[in-house]
């Protein structure tokens, strides 16, 4: 139920951001995770308070599941003074360490080692922290992906690296990104376990993630999980998305994670139509209030520009 709620909430936030973007009220573009919600929602639900995360640009459900509010997300995208980064970073580059969520930098792959180091620190402090880093299929080609996985393996760091394989890196299909059969096969080269799962099936991905996290929490070492999914919109809203064949979209439209989640819960009689409707209404209401509030807020004062580059001793 929590998982479903997160997915729906993220979807509606993304939809609202797209609308705001279309209205020309966003700086830059909107980068939606529509179609990929199950994976990060599953991680959020399966996680423990002390865990650490390096989300990428399509992990809104993780942020929400770890305590960020739709208001915070809107503020961030709009560069508001009260946003998690005070309007200094934009779009999807945010996080809060008190939620265990690292604020990413754009350089793909570079955050994996950061969360690895964070987990090392927490473990030394006696916590049973595990870490989860998200990357796309494209980011697996970076040197940083390799260095960080190998580093984590050598130090037995309990870190799950999830590859959200959505078939494209911007316009580039996976056939131009790598030649191996499954990216999960890279695990053997690091001496760690590699898993594949259907990233659009909330129940499957949840169980897979939960089991891996339990395992590496108890027996610290990294793991690699490749989750098959599909980005159902352009790389950003500026992207015409013509490079994706309609047939492929068809397949994943039928396999929409929210629909699959609802169907599964309905089949198991875990949810009623009324409950879904109530949830949607509640979510819509919060989103509407949050979006309006964020839109009405101020950008940071220009005078604060040079403050906080360094931290005072």
């Amino acid at each position: 139920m929590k998982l479903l709620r997160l997915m729906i909430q993220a979807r509606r936030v993304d939809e609202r951001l797209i609308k705001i973007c279309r209205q020309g009220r966003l700086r830059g573009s909107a980068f939606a995770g529509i179609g990929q919600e199950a994976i990060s929602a599953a991680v959020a639900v399966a996680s423990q308070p002390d865990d650490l995360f390096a989300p990428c640009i399509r992990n809104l459900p993780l942020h929400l599941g770890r305590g960020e509010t739709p208001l915070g997300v809107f503020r961030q995208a709009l560069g508001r003074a009260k946003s998690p980064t005070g309007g200094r970073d934009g779009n999807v580059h945010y996080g809060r360490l008190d939620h265990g969520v690292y604020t990413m930098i754009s350089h793909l792959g570079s955050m994996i080692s950061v969360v690895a180091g964070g987990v090392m620190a927490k473990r030394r402090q006696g916590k049973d922290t595990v870490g989860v880093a998200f990357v796309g299929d494209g980011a697996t080609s970076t040197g940083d992906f390799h260095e960080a996985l190998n580093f984590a393996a050598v130090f037995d760091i309990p870190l799950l690296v999830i590859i959200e394989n959505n078939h494209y890196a911007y316009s580039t299909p996976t056939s131009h990104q790598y030649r191996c059969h499954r990216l999960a096969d890279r695990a053997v080269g690091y001496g760690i376990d590699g898993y594949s799962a259907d990233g659009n099936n909330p129940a499957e991905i949840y169980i897979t993630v939960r089991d891996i996290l339990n395992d590496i929490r108890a027996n610290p070492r990294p793991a690699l999980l490749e989750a098959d999914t599909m980005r159902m919109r352009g790389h950003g809203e500026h992207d015409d998305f013509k490079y994706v064949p309609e047939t492929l979209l068809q397949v994943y439209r039928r396999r929409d994670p929210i629909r699959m989640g609802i169907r599964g819960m309905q089949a198991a009689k875990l949810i009623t139509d009324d409950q879904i409707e109530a949830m949607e209404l509640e979510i819509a209401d919060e989103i509407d209030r949050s979006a309006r509030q964020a839109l009405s807020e101020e950008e940071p004062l220009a005078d604060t520009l040079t403050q906080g580059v360094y931290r005072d001793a």
Partner: protein
Amino acid sequence: MREITYLQGIQEGLREVLKTDPTSVIYGQDVGAFGGAFKVTEGLQAEFGEARVFDTPISESAMLGAAIGMATQGMRPIVEMQFADFITTAMHQLLNNAGTRHYRTGDAVPMVVRVPSGGGTGGGPFHSEELETYFCHMPGVKVVYPAFPSDARSLLLSAAQDPNPVVFMENKTLYRSVKERVGDDLTALPLGKASVRHEGDDAVVITYGAMVHEALRAVSELHVTEGYEVMVVDLRSLKPYDLDTILAATAATSRVLVVSEGWRTCGYAAEIATAINESAFHLLDAPVHRLTAPDVPVPFAKSLEDRYRPAAADIVKALRDLIEL
């Protein structure tokens, strides 16, 4: 004469290189059928085929390393970084591997690295950087930075004819905003030559990239408001730079403002200011001033970025201070 944008200038330069130099190839992330994040290479793959224009994995180091390999075997690779910012993952390939190679081995390394640069687009800290200091501090590497469509076109040709690694900086805010009427004859421009964009003798603004346009706006405003005549020098080549033109402008005006969109400390503006002081100290009526971005990650919010990035109004103010000093 046709009117083309800065982006079209680059694209025409690229097309000309592909046409006239069969050893040339263009590659980068999404530069093929998609035409690149900014559509600079749009249509080139369709025109020249996948063997000449192609996509690569997201591997900046391998992309640059492979370019060195190709360049040393008779090819002329033109590599696009999706954003300048991402080249920081592979500085060693440029600084250590490409830049030092001719000196150490005598082998030519004719390669061009296109880096879409600069802020003003709301790109935030990682899609807005101006990294010319890094590139200019690399022995063996040349750096160009056009401000106008015709220069973009010609400098692309020159870069692609040079037997050395050349970093070709492109300013993202200029891609579609700057237009110019150009003829059809494409000629390479010698590297290392600045251009005087506006004449004047009350002071000179020495700058490059997007700041050339801010400077031009500033000097016409100053002309209208107080009748000052201020020269504007567009460096075009950052390394080597045109010391002759810089010194002539200094001699003609005695008051110099260097403007750069890059960070202040150890920024490119300091190099130009120092070179002027070293060679033309006695010609100066006032210290060379520099107007730069502060030492701050490029911020996202418009309120902050507007303050961050030097603009015409800041140049007006700095010039007024300089002239009235």
